[in-house]
């Protein structure tokens, strides 16, 4: 406060700068590299994150296809890969998990949407720290490179599961991947650093750089969600960063942090990991909910039911998510008394999440619903996520978890949460903001074909896996032929149904890719505000130029004033004077 020398101090200087001419069209004269590879423009960085995330998604999907093929037809030649060896199987499963969580869900949901939407929705021309933003992507890109290298080093990629429990992850004698496990760990650590930098940027921008007149309760819900998620990430990832250093030392320098024979404790890693790992679920869930909330309000032409309720439940979810982590460890040998505590907290966290779903459903009630492609995805998110949430209750209660732990029931449960989050909500967001991002419309018919071609096979992949899990099928098994009670033909048929459904679902993604690329260049030109939405990003041109707005907007009202009585139009942009 007391700093005359400070150029950033609030006061007259700040306000004056707002009245400067906008740097519209600034990016036109920059060279290709400056514009697309080393840009500090938040929209370019968002697209870098988006395309990197989509690319990694293709790799993760290919891995899923490979090991699902092996499970359905053990020992056979997988088209496009060859025969999968047990070690390769472990590496594929591990890296599928890591990639989908750390290199698809995080960069797309938080980094891509966060970078794209936060400055536009807050009515500013860029992030508070544009160069830090660029650094964040560069570190992330480095982590991608390190991860991809780790797949091809001698010994193969890391195969100790994405949770990397020691001693499997700490000792090369066990994992058989001396280089792969270290590179994997380094890649994950770099990815954390990238998102810490990005998260600080998001939070600071939202706190300080809002358009004049935008009060805290005028911030669109999706921005709130990304900010809360960034804070939760920031507070939960620290211990795991320390833990990763300790694991690295165990791998490289022969320390014994996780070696019980020499005074260490492998349970410590599990605590460090899940203290981050469980909040991480909410780190990706909250932005997904935010995207869905935006889409649902726009396409039901109704005010969001209970803005403050959503906001407070999101904060509550973020806080309670720190109190539930040990429910992943009920059978790991933790003290049974702690299991009671964590069962209770796990049941409690379903309250705010359920409330959020109720708010979304209440927003639909009585609205004039338009079933566009983004709206279909948003509705599918609610439906599918409820299945994921309800099956979670069986796993959160320590009694039933002892039976279900480490079966395919767990696997199907978290895919029923993660696929809605990282795939369905992302498609809702992508199809909704595509006209803004690229200035063109996507094809609705192809969009709907893609939607149904994804949702139906998605359910027929994972419902059989629920049944297999209840039948006792354990995770992380290369081939069930050695287990007579699991190799029965009726169970094998369920595996084949799941695998065939997966292949069908992946084929339908080609429809999306075709639609995406074609619409980018050939789609119908989009006007500024094709969905007649209120938030500030629709005030800018489509696609917004460098600097975003011709005149920096001022905000007069909340983001969800749809169908206000006594008005000609059923929407009321935030920047329109009363």
């Amino acid at each position, binding site marked *: *406060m*007391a700093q005359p020398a400070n150029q950033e101090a609030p006061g007259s200087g700040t306000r004056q700068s707002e*009245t400067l001419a906008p740097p519209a069209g600034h990016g036109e004269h920059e060279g290709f590299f400056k514009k697309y590879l080393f840009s500090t423009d938040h929209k370019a960085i968002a697209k870098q994150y988006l395309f990197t995330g989509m690319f990694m998604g293709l790799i993760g999907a290919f891995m899923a296809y490979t090991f699902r093929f092996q499970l359905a037809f053990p020992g056979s030649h997988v088209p496009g890969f060859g025969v999968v060896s047990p070690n390769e199987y472990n590496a594929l499963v591990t890296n599928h998990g890591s990639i989908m969580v750390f290199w698809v869900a995080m960069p797309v949901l938080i980094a891509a949407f966060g970078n794209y939407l936060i400055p536009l929705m807050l009515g500013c021309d860029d992030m508070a720290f544009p160069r830090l933003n660029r650094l964040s992507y560069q570190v992330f890109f480095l982590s991608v490179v390190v991860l991809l290298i780790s797949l091809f080093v001698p010994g193969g990629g890391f195969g100790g599961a994405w949770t990397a429990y020691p001693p499997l992850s700490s000792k090369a004698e066990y994992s058989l991947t001396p280089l792969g496990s270290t590179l994997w760990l380094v890649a994950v650590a770099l990815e954390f650093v990238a998102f810490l930098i990005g998260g600080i940027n998001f939070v600071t921008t939202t706190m300080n750089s809002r358009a004049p*007149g935008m009060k805290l309760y005028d911030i669109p819900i999706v921005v709130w969600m990304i900010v809360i998620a960034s804070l939760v990430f920031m507070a939960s990832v620290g211990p795991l960063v320390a833990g990763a250093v300790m694991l690295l030392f165990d791998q490289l320098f022969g320390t014994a942090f996780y070696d019980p*024979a020499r005074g260490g*404790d492998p349970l410590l890693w599990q605590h460090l990991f899940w203290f981050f790992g469980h909040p991480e679920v909410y780190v990706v869930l909250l932005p997904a909910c935010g995207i869905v909330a935006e889409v649902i309000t726009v396409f039901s032409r109704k005010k969001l039911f209970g803005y403050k309720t959503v906001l407070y439940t999101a904060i509550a979810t973020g806080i309670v998510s720190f109190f539930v982590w040990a429910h992943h460890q009920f059978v790991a040998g933790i*003290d049974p008394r702690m299991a009671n505590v*964590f069962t209770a907290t796990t049941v409690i966290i379903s309250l705010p999440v359920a409330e959020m779903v109720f708010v979304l459903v209440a927003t639909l009630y009585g609205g004039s619903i338009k079933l566009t492609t983004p709206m279909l995805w948003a509705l599918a998110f609610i439906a599918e996520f409820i299945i994921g949430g309800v099956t979670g209750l069986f796993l959160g209660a320590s009694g039933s978890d002892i039976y279900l732990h480490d079966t395919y029931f767990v696997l199907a449960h978290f895919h029923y949460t993660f696929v809605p989050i990282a795939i369905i909500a992302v498609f809702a967001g992508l199809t909704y903001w595509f006209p803004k991002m690229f200035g063109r419309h996507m094809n609705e018919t192809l969009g709907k074909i893609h939607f149904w071609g994804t949702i139906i096979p998605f359910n027929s992949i994972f419902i059989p896996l629920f049944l297999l899990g209840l039948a006792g099928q354990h995770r992380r098994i290369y081939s069930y032929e050695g287990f007579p009670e699991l190799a029965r033909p009726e169970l094998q048929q369920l595996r084949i149904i799941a695998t065939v459904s997966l292949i069908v679902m992946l084929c339908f993604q080609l429809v999306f890719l075709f639609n995406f690329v074609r619409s980018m260049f050939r789609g119908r030109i989009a006007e500024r505000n094709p969905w007649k939405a209120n938030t500030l990003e629709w005030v800018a041109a489509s696609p917004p130029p460098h600097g975003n707005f011709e005149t920096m907007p001022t905000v007069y009202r909340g983001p969800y004033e749809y169908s206000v009585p006594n008005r000609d139009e059923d929407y009321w942009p935030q920047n329109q004077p009363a």
Partner: protein
Amino acid sequence: MTSSPNETHEAGPPASGDEPRAREADPAEHAQAAEHAQAAEHAQAAEHAQAAEHAHAAEHAHANPVRVWAILCALLVVSVVGPMAEIRLLTLITAFGIAGVKAYLVAKHFLRLGVERRYVAYALVVSVAFMVLFFAGTAPDVMEHRGRLWTNHAAQKEVERALKEAARDGH
């Protein structure tokens, strides 16, 4: 955040005039909007006013940093001398109690958290609190070597072995 000299940004304003931003340029309006945001943040405007006043007063009332430093050095001497009495409780109090006091002094006077908006201190305290939470959830399994219906034989064996070895070495 470098200020590159070739910026057109600064060159714009005279041309752009007042009209397009008639509303923007109204300082009272702005102050009010900013005030509103603050008020919401603090849940009440009164607290905000108080904080501002506080900050203003503090401009003249910074503790002399050299004096704070002298106190810190004196505390350091105590924390080194204290454990020489070889009383376990005294060691804990002098070592960690004084560390807490020193950290408080540095945070208040050097980091100037005393005159910063209060939610910053709360945010930092919350991140410390999460670490206490982590400790509370993890210690029953890692710090303890025996619990209800379980024993950590490996850890117990290691402690026994190391203590025996230390005794043999004559400690």
